[in-house]
């Protein structure tokens, strides 16, 4: 039996094609995935991401607990509402999950974790909690939903639907959130565009969805979400990294804070293993197919593998994220094995697209 979000009936009524996404019955598209993608790049798209799990980390020592649990340093979160992207690592330095951590009070941080890993994350945090001197609880919120409105006109359309929230959210900088009663509005996302992610009581999400559609935001499915995040050079857990992959080999070194002497789970392994692979973008030069996960990449330095690949609607070309042998550099030409052919691709620096602009050639 698939799990459903409170918006399930609205998705179905809108003609969504529903798929089993990690045990959740989710909309992959409502028609053309490419048009949904363009709507986000050019105007505003609306995503139901209520399958993701909100975890409240509460109690005395919440900050110290997260300083030890996360690879990025929550010490950076000084102002209430500030958010941080981080990995949570195993002792061996593999990625348990990637998440966003919001700071509200010294005794209250909020994590948003992936749907497919939520149960594992909770169990993992419980283990860390038992070992910690901090007196914290990790409380999964089953009563909340999450909607993302993304695109150059996303905020404007949000305020059109909710004019009363404009004052409290207009000044929000990137990776900052405002709390208004049970609602949290954050200037975050997974598309490379401006916009908000809104966490609100599940009982109110249908009304919000309808209000945002009425304000001109176009419903977009998980299909567009994937092409948008790939163009934006953002990793997907389970594809670009997992428990067997170091964040240093997944292009996530920028999220691992090794500057402070802080001890965190996985630090020792990262420091002794270092980086063993390059994680870079690929732009397909030849015609002949679409880059996909698990395709082999032949380079002068040895073989690599695509971790995520797709057709980029913005570029009109196929793009990918790939784990490549060390020594591979931006500008190199490599060959990807697609069925019975070897197609030339250029190594590029991700992101491919940000804020509607193409960044690679």
């Amino acid at each position, binding site marked *: 039996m698939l799990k459903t979000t409170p918006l399930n009936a609205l998705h179905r009524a809108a003609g969504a*094609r529903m798929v089993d996404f990690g045990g959740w019955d989710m909309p*992959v*598209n409502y028609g*053309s*995935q*490419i048009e949904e993608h363009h709507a986000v790049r050019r105007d505003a798209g609306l995503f139901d991401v209520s399958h993701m799990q909100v975890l409240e980390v509460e109690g005395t020592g919440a900050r110290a607990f997260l300083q030890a649990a996360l690879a990025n340093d929550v010490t950076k979160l000084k102002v209430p509402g500030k958010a941080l992207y981080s990995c949570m690592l195993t002792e061996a330095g593999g990625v348990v999950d990637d998440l966003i951590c919001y700071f509200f009070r010294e005794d209250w941080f909020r994590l948003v974790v992936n749907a497919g890993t939520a149960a594992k994350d909770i169990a993992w945090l419980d283990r860390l909690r038992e070992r910690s001197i901090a007196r914290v609880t990790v409380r999964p919120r089953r009563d909340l939903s999450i909607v993302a409105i993304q695109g150059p006109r996303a905020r404007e359309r949000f305020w059109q639907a909710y004019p009363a929230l404009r004052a409290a959210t207009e000044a929000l900088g990137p990776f900052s959130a405002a709390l208004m009663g049970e609602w949290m509005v954050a200037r975050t996302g997974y598309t490379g565009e401006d916009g908000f992610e809104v966490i609100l009581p599940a009982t109110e999400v249908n009304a919000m969805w309808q209000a945002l559609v009425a304000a001109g935001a176009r419903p977009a499915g998980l*299909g567009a979400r994937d*092409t948008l995040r790939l163009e934006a050079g953002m990793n997907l857990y389970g594809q670009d990294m997992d428990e067997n992959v170091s964040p240093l080999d997944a292009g996530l070194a920028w999220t691992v804070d090794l500057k402070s002497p802080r001890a965190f789970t996985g630090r020792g392994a990262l420091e002794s293993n270092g980086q063993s692979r390059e994680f870079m973008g690929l732009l397909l030069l030849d*015609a*002949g*197919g*679409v880059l*996909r996960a698990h395709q082999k990449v032949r380079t002068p330095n040895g073989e690599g593998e695509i971790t995520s690949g*797709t*057709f980029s*609607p913005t570029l009109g070309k*196929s793009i990918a994220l790939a784990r490549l042998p060390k020594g591979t550099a931006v500008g190199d030409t490599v060959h990807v094995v697609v*069925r019975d052919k070897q197609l030339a691709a250029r190594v590029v620096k991700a992101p491919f697209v940000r804020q509607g602009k193409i960044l690679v050639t």
Partner: protein
Amino acid sequence: MKLPKDLRYTESHEWVRRESDGTVSIGITDHAQEQLGDVVFVEAPQPGRKVAKGESVGVVESVKAASDIYAPLAGEIVAANADLSSAPEKVNEDAFAAWMFRIKPANAADLDQLLDAAAYEKVASE
């Protein structure tokens, strides 16, 4: 679901149309394009190639996935639709107009062995 009565179909979601010159045109069904989503790449077989029934002869790729196209009957490839390499979205716009390749059947009667619209409808609704 669009399902022209005058075409033949396969269980692998190709449609097959008899042309006046004795060749048959092959494409993928409306049901198949809907399942695939936005088509971004079509690779049809080279004319001149001899193919067996059920042989994988081409590929359709959407944003989501790659899917093989199979020869519905034995024969020789006599034409490929070059329009689809530059405009693969035509498959989504009208799947039954977007023929991918033509075969000169080794045995013209093989066409009658394929599914009719009613039988394909059952396959597609499973």
